[in-house]
């Protein structure tokens, strides 16, 4: 038993070490994809998926419990937060007297992002929902099977 556990630890050393570097890189990459979505391939959905993959990788290298511990709030709460962000980004033009979900632009031709406006906020909401949904589903299943 004891040997087994040691073995497992040894098996995972490489994976764990690389994960420690990969996790922040993947998350940075996902954010990169999120913000450049308006001009180049990317966007909230794909960004969210990449971010979840990063966490899934971590949970493989360690354990789902340890991954969950990195979150100060449960990933589940990312879902309502993301929905709220999306909704508020749609509501923003209403406050400014235009109809719901009209694009509002704060700055144009920013590096990488392109035009920065309510669309990015909306995408941020999608990003959060996707991360929340994927992690909730995966962690719930891994906890319960």
């Amino acid at each position: 038993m004891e040997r087994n556990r040691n073995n497992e630890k040894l098996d995972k050393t490489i994976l764990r070490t690389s994960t420690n570097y990969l996790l922040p890189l993947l998350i940075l990459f996902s954010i990169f994809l999120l913000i450049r979505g308006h001009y180049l391939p990317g966007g909230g959905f794909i960004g969210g998926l990449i971010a979840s993959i990063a966490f899934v990788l971590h949970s493989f290298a360690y354990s789902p419990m340890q991954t969950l511990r990195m979150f100060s709030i449960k990933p589940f709460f990312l879902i309502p937060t993301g929905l709220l962000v999306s909704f508020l980004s749609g509501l923003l033009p209403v406050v400014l007297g235009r109809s719901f979900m009209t694009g509002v632009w704060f700055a144009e031709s920013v590096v990488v992002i392109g035009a920065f406006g309510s669309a990015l906020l909306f995408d941020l909401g999608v990003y959060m929902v996707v991360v929340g949904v994927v992690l909730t589903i995966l962690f719930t299943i891994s906890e319960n099977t």
Partner: protein
Amino acid sequence: MLLPIIITFLLAFVMLLFKPQKMARFFKFISVIPLLLFLYLLSYLPAVHYGAKSVFFKNEWIPSLGISLDFKIDGLSMLFSLMITGIGTLIYLYAAEYLKKDENIHRFYCYLTLFMGAMLGVVLSDNLITLFVFWELTSISSYFLIGYNTNEEDSRKSALWALSLTGLGGFLMLASFSLIGMVSGTYSINELLTQPGILVNNEYYYIIISLLFAGAFTKSAQFPFHFWLPGAMKAPTPVSAYLHSATMVKAGIYLLARFSPILSGDEVWNYTLMIVGGVTMVIGALLSVFHKDMKGLLAYTTISALGIIVFLLGIGTETAYYAACTFILVHALYKATLFLVTGIVDHETHTRDLSVLRGLGKVMPLVAIAAFIAALSSAGIPLTFGFLSKELFYGVTTGNIWTRESVFILTGIILLTNVFLTSAGFLAGIRPFFGKLPQEFKKIHKPNIFLWLPPVVLSFLTLLFGVLPAIVDQTVINAATSAVFGKSTDIYLSLWHGVNVVLLLSIITIVLGTVLYFTIKPSNKNEGRLKGLDDFSPQTLISNIAVGIRLFAFKYTRFFHNGYLRIYILIIILFFTGIVGYKLFADVPLRVNTEGLSEFRIYEFIVFVITMIAIYIITNTTSRLTSIAALGVVGYSICLIFVFYGAPDLAMTQFAIDTLTVVLFVLVLFKLPPFLKFSNGKIQFRDGIISVSFGILISLITLQALVSPADKSVSKFYADNAYVMAKGKNVVNVILVDYRGFDTMIETIVLSIAAIGVYSILKYKTQDGEKSE
């Protein structure tokens, strides 16, 4: 007007912040909300006074669809909204005391306030669609109110009955509204009033009115949909008092009255209302006196009273409308009193059994007086408000527009109804308070002021309006009648018409009603007799239909959802192949153009080989994990194809999704045992044929799609405008977040629901497992 209604809805949710029990004393102060609304509405009274005039509040909502949040106060709206807020104020006061010890009282006030807001919306909306929205809100909030005692099965069941019936009616009503909108081109009631003929002479007229009737009759508990109302008596008494005197059931009446000037051009309209209303009022009255539960009795008298109003609206003369408008107020006042009194009796003695309750007048004299006045008003004794309305009924049925026979028939049934209602009123309002006080009730404590004040106020109004009818009649009732009649009217209530047939009929009613009161003794035997009728009641019929539908749905679902995933997939693919294949071969000239295809490149060939190997492994492996991994390989190969053909977005998404799917599968399958049984050759052969034919079909469709000319106007529009209008160069993303952002938002909601579904199913299972262990 929009602002007060929105504030009401918002305040409803503020109620949830109050702490029950600890802050129980403060709940009675919530009655300030309906009181302020009442005063606010009252301030518009001079404006709508003497009919024909109305106050209009314009608020745009979705102008492109003709939907607005316009509100209009005319006489009819005024009558209803004053009842809703006025009686509401008393109910709010009363309920704070009645439910003092309830631990969910904050929720109760939330539901009640939502309901009141919705009711106000119904009677004040000028737009049909908005009216429908508020209408449905009353159904939903009343569902919570009726089913308030959530741990009683009966209560939940009756709430569901009420919701399904009124919901069904609402649905049909929406269909009627859409037809009206289609025919007349407007959803505004105000505009419809200016062109009354357009609907009556239309070919859809009968469909429109029958659908509208379905909505009104279910809501107002008309025969044969009356049975949800007695069931709804499972609600706490303040709810019954509110829903069944002034609000919920009167919404159907409101609808009919509102549409009378627009739709009542045809005899069918009048006869349907007269027949349905007539049957309802007679049945309700006949059944009421045999109940020994005070609330049950009152429920049936309510059904009967609603029948009377529908009947009067059906007659459709100026006096009939006048009688209807008067009776709406008369009934609201005395019925609310009787319900509130019932609540007090129930609260203090813990029973509503009329065969036991006697002599309570000695313990609670003020309550007894209030009940007494209400009973007199329901019987139509002079000097009460009820007398005036009863005079009007007989004035209508003996009017000179009828033939001799119809005078007899109409007067006969309304006399019969009134006789029974009189004695039912006496049974509920007089019997419990007179006679000898049983020993067991001697020590009950006296009701608190907040319990007895509301019924006393209501019965005081009953007397006041009875003696000085001018107070209400020249202000509200006259204006309401004008709104229903469509022209201004100059009828006024008067106390004394002289000795004539009408007075004689009133006296006969009272005498016969009193005789009946002394003949009928509430007992179990009478109730038992009613039970026998249940087998033939519409409720039994409808619940049998409901059981049948459920059984069919169960069998149908079991047939297709037999629990084997592979069968589901098989059915889906077979169905798809069958339908699409048939369409493809029957209707489309198959043409494959090989010239337009690009050259076959070496790395495409490599991908093809990899895919084939992976597929071979999937079909032949004995390990779950291997097949999952091989499936992943197929997915990645498809990603590569996307990359080759210039769809990086798709490739990235496919790549991420594939990774996650494999992970998900592994998580689930990791703990399953290795395959135990393998399908035999026959099944493999069957599956092989199905999948190959599906594959062939898809390939054919793809090749076919290349040949047929594509309509590129949509994609050209997006490509041209993505940067101009949405400042984005990635067209796909611009479509997702901007052009079709609303879809994306709804899709994220769907995703969230899926996550919540997985979460709750799995968590629920764990808890179940824990229990069984």
